[in-house]
């Protein structure tokens, strides 16, 4: 069935920004109806993205906000508890970034969400923003034992990997197509637990 829901966005007040519609519509198709309680919770979480005054809103911010909404929606509706935690973290990061005059690269958001939706079985990483506005995740397993992926919003993701090798620490810095990061890293010995 197709479900459609509309609700009023927080007002965006900027001479440089206009919305063609003061309502944001989410449409999705599923075989079974989404429980009302889940929808209500989703809407409440999504609305938390926009409690901040957008007096200086410009198009990149608006794009970023839309991408975050899409990412949160997709992650939250994926029926994966880890993805819900990731969605919550994304909302927090968005708020923190706005409060600190930072930004999140819209392309990074999309790539980040697609990655975690594709790999539902890997663990919950640390999730941070870089000074360049890209999302970065890191699975920490101890000193000299981690893997970090940076979602640059480009075909190649940046990877940093450290692994214990006897008394030494092997260190890798490389770029890989995002869809190959996990198999390549695992072949070297990385863990995403």
């Amino acid at each position, binding site marked *: 069935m197709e479900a459609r829901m509309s609700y009023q966005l927080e007002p965006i007040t900027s001479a440089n920004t206009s919305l063609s519609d003061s309502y944001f519509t989410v449409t999705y198709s599923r075989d079974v109806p989404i429980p009302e309680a889940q929808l209500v919770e989703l809407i409440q979480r999504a609305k938390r993205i926009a409690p901040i005054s957008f007096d200086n809103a410009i198009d990149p911010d608006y794009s970023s906000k839309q991408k975050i909404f899409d990412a949160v929606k997709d992650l939250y509706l994926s029926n994966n508890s880890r993805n819900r935690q990731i969605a919550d973290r994304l909302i927090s990061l968005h708020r923190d970034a706005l409060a600190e005059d930072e930004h999140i690269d819209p392309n990074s958001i999309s790539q980040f969400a697609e990655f975690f939706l594709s790999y539902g079985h890997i663990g919950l990483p640390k999730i941070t*923003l870089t000074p360049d506005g890209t999302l970065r995740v890191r699975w920490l397993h101890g000193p000299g034992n981690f893997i970090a992926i*940076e979602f640059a919003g480009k075909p190649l993701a940046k990877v940093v990997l450290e692994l214990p090798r006897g008394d030494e620490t092997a260190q890798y810095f490389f770029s890989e197509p995002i869809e190959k990061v996990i198999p390549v890293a695992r072949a070297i010995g990385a863990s995403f637990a």
Partner: protein
Amino acid sequence: MADLEDFHHFFRHIKKSWMDGDFVDPAAFRLAKKKDDQFEDGLSINWLEYFEKSSPQEAIAPLRQILENKGRKVGGESKFALLNVEAAKAAASRYIAIAIVHDEEKEDPSHALVTGYNTHNDQVAEELSKVVIDTYPAKL
């Protein structure tokens, strides 16, 4: 610009969005790119011993005031990471020799820079993050 003494220390302001809990992402120590796609001149830091306090903690309040006077946002949940000059140089030397120099500004006399790692930005950032001595909340 004069080099900071090896036995001295410096702070790096860490924004909340660069952390997840107690974890500080090493990207906080990367040189940022300017609008013209060139790297900034150096990593912006603050020289601890300038404040002449008996502990790093005591330097936080005046440092925060300086940064806020410069127009920087210092969020309550952001932190200041403390590093030693000699340890930072040694850590970076795995990849390249860096300089840590006093870069006094009119409104920020403790301002300093970590320079010389444009070619190994990601690598040196990772190494610097490993020699953080401690982190201090920007606001208590």
